[in-house]
């Protein structure tokens, strides 16, 4: 109608698109479903922060949010939607809602959010299994390394052990002292390793958050991780120390001094 200025529809774009296309609030854009189509002119009304969603990490696509009716019109999709998000009161009411929708709405299937999450996170389940396998290999390598180092460390003390044995100190006392020493060394090493791991997570998060432009945290040092590392290292340290100490304690003191 002449003289009447039509109000532009508004859209929200994600921060990556805003940065890459140098768009700011209030800018006008033309949106079309296919390259080269006439499309609709719209105004940028909001710039959204990227969400910490793992499924979006490797996808470099931009996100534009439109009013539903405008997207339906733009894509000639008619009065259709891909899905409805339904909020329930939780607990048993969720099960009742799922059953009611499935029974009442012919052609609809209701899915619980947690089931959808399991389905859509299949990729991350694979990555998680891969990490676990790599973790096992690393633990085996660390265990052998630790055993080797402690064996050498205890072997270095053969003269001291021989002197202690010759001065009447019992085998059990020597084994205990070596095991305690091994545990202390392992504990100190683990604490240093945890600090190193924490620094590594800061670097990893900072790097990958920059690469993928996401607030997602890629590496975490959790209390469970710390407890696991401490327990595993100390157990390995005690076992390795005990094996090395028993080996030394069983030998004759003169043999340890190289006199037999």
């Amino acid at each position, binding site marked *: 109608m002449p003289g009447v200025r039509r109000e532009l529809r508004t859209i929200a774009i994600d921060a990556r698109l805003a940065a890459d296309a140098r768009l700011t609030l209030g800018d006008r854009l033309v949106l079309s479903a296919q*390259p080269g189509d006439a499309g609709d002119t719209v105004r940028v009304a909001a710039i959204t922060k990227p969400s910490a969603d793992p499924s979006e990490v*490797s996808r470099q*696509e931009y996100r534009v949010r439109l009013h539903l009716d405008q997207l339906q019109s733009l894509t000639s999709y008619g009065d259709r939607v891909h899905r409805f998000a339904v909020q329930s009161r939780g607990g048993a009411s969720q099960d009742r809602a799922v059953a009611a929708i499935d029974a009442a709405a012919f*052609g609809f299937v209701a899915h619980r959010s947690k089931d959808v999450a399991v389905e859509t996170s299949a990729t991350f389940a694979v990555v998680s*299994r891969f990490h676990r396998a790599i973790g096992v290999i690393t633990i085996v390598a660390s265990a052998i390394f630790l055993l080797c180092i402690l*064996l050498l460390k205890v072997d270095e003390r053969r003269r001291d052990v021989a002197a202690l044995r010759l001065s009447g100190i019992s085998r059990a006392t020597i084994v205990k002292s070596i095991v305690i020493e091994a545990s202390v060394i392992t504990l100190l090493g683990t604490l240093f390793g945890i600090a190193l791991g924490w620094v590594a997570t800061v670097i990893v998060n900072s790097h990958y958050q920059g690469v993928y432009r996401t607030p997602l945290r890629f590496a975490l040092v959790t209390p469970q991780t710390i407890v696991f590392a401490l327990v595993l290292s100390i157990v390995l340290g005690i076992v390795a120390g005990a094996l090395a100490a028993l080996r030394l304690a069983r030998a004759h003191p003169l043999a340890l001094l190289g006199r037999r």
Partner: protein
Amino acid sequence: MIGRLVVASLAGHRARTLLAVAGVAVSAALLLDMVMLSSGMRESFRSLLTSRGFDLRVAPKGTLPFDTEATIADATATIAALRESPDVVAVAPVLGGTIHLPQRGGAAISSVALGVDPATQGDYVLLTGHEPADGEIVANDALLAASRHHVGDTLTIAGGYDPQLRRFDSSRRVRISGRVRFVYLARDQRAAAMPLAAMQALGGPARRDRVSLMMIRARAGADAEGVRQWIARRLPKVTAISTATAIAQVEERLSYFRQLAFILGSVSLVVGVLLVGTLVTVSVNERIGEFAVLRAIGIARRTITAQIMIEGAVLMLAGALLGLALGLVTARYLNAILASFPGLPQSIDFFLFQPRAAWTALGLLAIAGITAGAWPAWRGASLPIARVLREEAA
């Protein structure tokens, strides 16, 4: 003599020798796995893209092939324009979509469907039967198993399905002319292919004369980048992607694995070197008396240094060889884990054994380990003989 001394020394500390070899073997295995991971995806993807002889992919402007639902309009004119280039030998158009196979009770089996030109297509390998003619489709094992059909059967397919009304649109009867393996699809992904015109007709007016992608085979010796630039100038509504660009984009998406491989590979290299360096250092400290005696009876300093370094070399080489076998086994296991990525083409391998890269990595580990033992070996052989003998006798 050196050989006998080396054997005697290593055999004299059996537990230590075995642990050292095991430690180096695990480090070498991890290093080998990470080398295989760092180059495996790239080479595997390159091999996948070039396996059918196409050099370029043409997709709707600003998109990657099948990354969005966008399609290229005026496909006939676009194909004709592409064929104007003297460097373009073949153009294989592809229209992607979904078909539905009606089942009893109103349910349906859904499947990926590709509309192709059977004469030039590069999406599948025909296993049995023949290329689809008008009124025919070819299907992969996953679809045949799900629908319980065989080559030669006739079935109904539909281009659209309304689950609310359980109504199928654009239904037609087709015959299965062949069994195929789709090159770019996952093993368990149900898929069928049919002539392009049939697929366009199934999609209704919205898909008339449209394609999702065109694969281009360039003349032998032609510069693919030159062809890409020619397409960019001639057809501004499409994006041409060369194999190199596609590989670079996939690498960017999967850069995490490459970086993980680099970090873990470096760590395993350092661990292996540290292990042998520490062993040689401690071994030298323990045996300074022995070396002093050898020097006193006239054995040359370089002979003692060589003996210590050979001990380190034996540990590294034995560990590296054991690590090679262990690495191949673990790589197979890790590859099986990553192969279960949803939607991953079945021919993609994350871990690919390339002899040159593997031997370079293991050789680097061995040389680094041997070098790490050089300084303690030289120090052990250079101690003042008289003082060491006096201290040892005390």
